[in-house]
């Protein structure tokens, strides 16, 4: 597992939109994001980078460096 926890979610849904493999879904009861399919996480960090509250944590031991373009 690479995406490890979501704490302090406000339910804006940005992470759900940015995740390319649909790892995160919105809990209909709480309206907050939950890690539904952790095994599908590709450690792309998009959810973490786009979360406005920095609520998402990625396991550091499984992380790979984020590749950013120079242009």
């Amino acid at each position, binding site marked *: 597992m690479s995406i*490890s*926890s979501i*704490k*302090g*979610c*406000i*339910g*804006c849904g*940005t992470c759900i939109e940015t995740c390319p493999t649909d790892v995160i879904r919105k809990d209909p009861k709480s*309206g*907050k994001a939950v890690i539904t399919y952790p095994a599908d996480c590709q450690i792309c960090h*998009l959810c*973490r*980078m*786009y*979360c*406005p*509250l*920095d*609520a998402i*944590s990625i*396991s*550091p031991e499984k992380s790979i460096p*984020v590749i*950013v373009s120079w242009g």
Partner: protein
Amino acid sequence: MFPGDKMKADMKTYNRLAAILFFLAMPLLFWALGDTPRRSFLKESISLLTILGYFLMLGQFFLSRRNKKVLKPHKTGKVLRLHKIIGYIFVSVLLVHPVLIVVPRFFEVGISPSEAFSTILSTWDSQGLILGMIAWSLMLILGITSMFRNKLVMKYTAWRVFHGILSTVFITLATWHAVELGRHTDLPMSLYMGTIAGLGVLLLVRSYLQKSSNIQSA
């Protein structure tokens, strides 16, 4: 030095140590022992600043005239001056904390600080966020009414009751908001926050009830 003076000095020292323990050391300990994943130095510093600001605010309930028995050895003027100084510090820290959260975005790829801030403010279906916004507004009123107390058309005693009620509502909402949205508010820290906040409110309510029963019996 008379024995009474020594006891007074000792009591002052114990009070200072207790204040440091409950409102500085314990929160730091909870932060250090919590299992929340660590982030960059800047982000953790901002988290710590906010946590300490919150606990300073909790300390205000105990650093007032309502806590007569414990603060007996201290001069009232000094206590009130410290209450004021700490009040202005924590109000400033907590007023800017929503902006501080997005500051690290200046140094990262991904969402921009302004975009992050507008997303936070436009998410209206989050209970924790709405509680935070109400608490933030109440804190602003608390700060302004304290700063310009002399200019308000209100007797000092009436202002004190107003200040106490406003603080109680504010602390309730702020604690709820922090427990729900705080990154470091795991179960032990939430329980600690709830206990200290509850005790502070109880102290205030008890002093009001005692006062009103004294007036009735007189």
